[in-house]
């Protein structure tokens, strides 16, 4: 049916029920069971309006939602509601069993256990199937993992056509960050028969989702938009798009390639009627491809195109030879894994290999834990690297994306275990041309095995797009002919087999010194033969540089955009447009403070002193003017906070470096201050105060910082001890600023003659004035005020 025309779904049900008397606050499912004629009326109206498919009224028919209304007979509720629909619509109308979200997020994105979620959806699905539905629709999903649990649940108990639609926010992603293409790649691989979007957005946005999905879709696409978003029309806020306007999008939907279309919140049978009319006989565009070489995480997609950049699979997360990683995995810790994932991702890896094979470890549990961790910690799709099928299965089941299995070899028992697993979860896999016993040394032998494995894979429904073929890299040091055989294999896979070659790069250089040059060179040579992906170390800069270069030279980086982005532009911390001539030592000090150059300031200071400048003169004539200039720039917003602080820290470093000389120069003379700083009792905020302390020290003040949550008594004790002339008090909340008058009053009572200056988000000048204290808005102003006070 879908190949011939665009099918029309139904519209909103909740509002239709409310119009016909359903009160607010009730459970729609239970109410419909008590008032079946009402829901039947609604559904018949939608059918009459032109709906080819009508949804059962079971959106909240899962265990959790029904429990909120103290109903526990999940199966019966769903079965009976399906029968209610069938009774109304007869055998010819397609009835879709509606499965909505539980309202909870599923691990690793939330607290609901994955298998519990699967059970919950199986329970509901069984009822719907028993009730005689023709297909299942899993809708309004905002969590890709929940959608997966529901889809797996349905597919494990039936063969029914299953639609999955997710709800995307205005920014084009679900609440957890999944965008339409990513959701599509994951769900269609997992067995969804149609994928799309419903709710949350209006027709215009939803058309863009369909357009984004169509080029990658191997299944029909679905759109069930809301009737618009709140809009201001003639000064009044209206929410619903009228039927005519809603239907006017029909042509654009058809052109975008939608295959099933309906309406969600705000729509009525009239909207559907108009939509059906406007769709008319518009041509349905069936899926334009039957398979796709693409992988996904929860938030990102990687399409492995022939003319796309070479994909790098980060090999780091592999405990072989890594004692620290082995220990961490055995102890169930995670910080090293996290760090390795992040480093590889930042270095430019496209995918991450995950191997947790440590002797004596519970590999299944560890794999599950690490995959769950990485599903959240990184956006990169994962490669599941394990020799144990149980570990592969555990990973594939829990991974909220489409993964790559590393690998499936030609050994019969491995193939027979791993191929069905990869097929069930829709994973891609690395085809490893190993047969019983030995590693084939020649390209010829490898080619034969590749063909054999591929033949077997085809019977499980795999196509060439679903696999990467390992060319097998042997150590050049022990067999000089090995690289050539690998290159021959790669070329055959690319040009003759028309598949996607892959290699595990690092092996080639094993046993040689300076392995990196061999690795990089071999990568380039293999790329020229058509390599699509490589398992390698992305943190090696020269390797990634060569990869980018080979992409340009092999026409896999259009207009060399990636290469140029990586290598052009200012590098390092040098500021552009410096003075043409070599700056003098004092000029360098001045500029370093302006630039916030913490790294070089002390060298410049030493140079200035060596050139004859005394420490006090350097501070007075060069450094203080520099920091004052920074303050000016900050005041004009030409510098913002990080630059201000960086300059202040640079100044601080220089002052500390000069302190021995400054002390000698003072020799008995008094330093300015000390200025006492404290955040008042009950208050914990202190970053503002730290900034003030820094600025004061920049200007040569001695500062005593008492910290936060300091009692009045402790403050005054410190005043006496240090003989402080000025005390700065900080408070950020209305409840704590009341401490300020306390401190000031207590100081008066005790006859202390220090002056006070107040700061903090809630403090105002009038408030400070009323207490006879000074006020400063920020660190820069504080320095000015305190200088004046002294």
């Amino acid at each position, binding site marked *: 049916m879908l190949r011939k025309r665009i099918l029309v779904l139904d519209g909103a049900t909740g509002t239709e029920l409310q119009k016909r008397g359903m009160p607010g606050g009730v459970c729609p499912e239970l109410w419909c069971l008590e008032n079946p004629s009402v829901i039947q009326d609604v559904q018949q109206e939608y059918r009459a309006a032109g709906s080819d498919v009508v949804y059962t009224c079971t959106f909240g028919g899962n265990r959790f939602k029904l429990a909120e209304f103290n109903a526990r007979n999940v199966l019966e509720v769903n079965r009976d509601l399906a029968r209610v629909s069938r009774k109304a619509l007869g055998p010819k109308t397609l009835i879709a069993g509606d499965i909505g979200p539980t309202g909870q997020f599923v691990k690793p994105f939330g*607290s609901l256990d994955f298998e519990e979620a699967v059970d919950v959806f199986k329970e509901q699905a069984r009822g719907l199937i028993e009730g005689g539905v023709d297909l299942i629709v899993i809708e309004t999903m905002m969590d890709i993992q929940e959608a997966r649990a529901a889809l797996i649940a349905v597919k494990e108990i039936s063969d029914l056509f299953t639609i999955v639609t997710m709800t995307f926010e205005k920014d084009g992603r679900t609440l957890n960050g999944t965008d339409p293409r990513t959701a599509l790649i994951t769900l269609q691989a997992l067995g969804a028969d149609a994928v799309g979007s419903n709710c949350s957005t209006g027709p215009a946005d939803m058309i863009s989702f369909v357009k984004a999905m169509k080029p990658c879709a191997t299944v029909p696409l679905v759109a069930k938009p809301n009737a618009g978003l709140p809009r201001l029309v003639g000064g009044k806020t209206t929410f619903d798009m009228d039927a005519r306007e809603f239907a006017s999008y029909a042509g654009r939907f058809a052109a975008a390639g939608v295959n099933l279309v309906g309406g969600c919140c705000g729509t009525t049978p009239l909207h559907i009627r108009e939509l059906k009319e406007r769709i008319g006989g518009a041509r349905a565009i069936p899926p334009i491809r039957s398979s796709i070489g693409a992988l996904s995480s929860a938030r990102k997609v990687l399409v492995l195109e022939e003319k796309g950049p070479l994909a790098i699979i980060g090999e780091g997360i592999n405990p072989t030879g890594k004692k620290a990683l082995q220990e961490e995995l055995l102890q169930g810790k995670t910080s090293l894994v996290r760090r390795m994932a992040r480093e590889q991702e930042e270095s430019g890896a496209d995918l991450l290999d995950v191997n947790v094979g440590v002797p004596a470890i519970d590999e299944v549990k560890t794999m599950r834990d690490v995959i769950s961790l990485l599903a959240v910690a990184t956006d990169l799709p994962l490669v599941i690297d394990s020799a144990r099928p149980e570990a592969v299965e555990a990973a594939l089941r829990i991974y909220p994306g489409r993964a790559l299995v590393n690998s499936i070899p030609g050994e019969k028992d491995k193939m027979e275990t791993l191929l069905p697993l990869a097929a069930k979860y829709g994973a891609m896999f690395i085809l490893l041309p190993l047969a019983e016993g030995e590693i084939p040394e020649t390209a010829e032998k490898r080619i034969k095995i590749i063909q054999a494995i591929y033949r077997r894979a085809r019977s499980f429904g795999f196509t060439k797009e679903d696999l990467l073929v390992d060319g097998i890299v042997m150590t050049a040091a022990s067999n000089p002919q090995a690289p050539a055989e690998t290159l021959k294999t790669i070329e055959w896979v690319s040009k003759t087999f028309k598949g996607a070659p892959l290699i595990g790069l690092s092996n080639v250089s094993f046993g040689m010194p300076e392995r990196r040059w061999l690795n990089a060179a071999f990568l380039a040579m293999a790329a020229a033969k058509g390599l699509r992906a490589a398992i390698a170390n992305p943190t090696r800069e020269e390797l990634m540089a060569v990869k980018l270069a080979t992409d340009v030279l092999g026409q896999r980086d259009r207009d060399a955009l990636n290469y140029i982005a990586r290598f052009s532009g200012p590098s390092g911390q040098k500021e552009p447009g410096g003075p043409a001539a070599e700056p003098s030592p004092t000029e360098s000090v001045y500029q370093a403070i302006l630039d916030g150059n913490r790294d070089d300031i002390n060298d410049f200071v030493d140079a200035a002193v060596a050139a004859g400048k005394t420490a006090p003169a350097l501070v007075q004539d060069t450094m203080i003017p520099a920091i004052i200039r920074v303050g000016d720039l900050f005041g004009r917003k030409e510098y913002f906070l990080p630059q201000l602080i960086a300059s202040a820290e640079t100044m601080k470093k220089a002052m500390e470096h000069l302190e021995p000389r400054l002390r000698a120069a003072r020799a008995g003379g008094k330093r300015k201050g000390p200025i006492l700083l404290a955040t008042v009792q009950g208050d914990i905020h202190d970053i503002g105060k730290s900034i003030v302390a820094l600025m004061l020290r920049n200007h040569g003040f001695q500062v005593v910082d008492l910290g936060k949550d300091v009692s009045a008594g402790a403050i005054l004790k410190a005043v006496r001890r240090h003989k402080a002339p000025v005390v700065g008090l900080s408070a950020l909340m209305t409840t704590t600023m009341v401490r300020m008058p306390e401190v000031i009053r207590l100081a008066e009572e005790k006859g202390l003659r220090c002056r006070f200056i107040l700061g903090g988000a809630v403090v105002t000048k009038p408030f400070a004035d009323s207490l006879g204290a000074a006020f400063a808005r920020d660190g820069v102003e504080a320095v000015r005020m305190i200088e004046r006070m002294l």
Partner: protein
Amino acid sequence: MNGPQFFDRITVQTPLRNIYRRLGYKKGVTRLEAGRRDELETWIRDAGLLMHLKGVARRFPVTARDSSRTLLPEDVVFESRDLASFLDGCGEIALIAATAGEDIINAIEQTAAANQLTRGVVFDAVASETVDAALDWITAYLRQALRRENKAPRRGRFSAGYGDFTLENQKRIFELLELQRIGVRINESFILIPEKSVTAVVGIREKP
């Protein structure tokens, strides 16, 4: 009255524009060279990794109101003209809260000690803006949940400490949301700890 709904892991896109704005960046005026920008964005990413956003939301029917008080079930009374005015027309409210967790706060404190205050102020800004974004996330979640009941959250949020809705109310909100379950405490000055934790009242109204 339903119990609180907890969100163990809130993911938001880093609110870069808001972070820059909070740090005082003014487009077209502030000069930021490429090298400094890279350093800044590395710190922003570092901060992101140190935050573990958690949240909670709970809906309450408004049982009674007048111009200065809002009453909820189980004798909850919020005395505030400003809040009552904010909630005008809302038959229901949601109390929501979010926290960035302790790790980011510990990291900020360490930066002051270790002469890395520049990094510290960036972390501070990231934490504040991200927690705010987490409240946006919770509101979006509510919006989706309410849609089928033909209700919607009203634009804006109102927190304890705004206007005449005194900070003392934070204690009652803390109890109603069971904030200890997301790792938050409250001190005798009604300040939430860890520092980057916020609560808010959101109005819910029926759609016309």
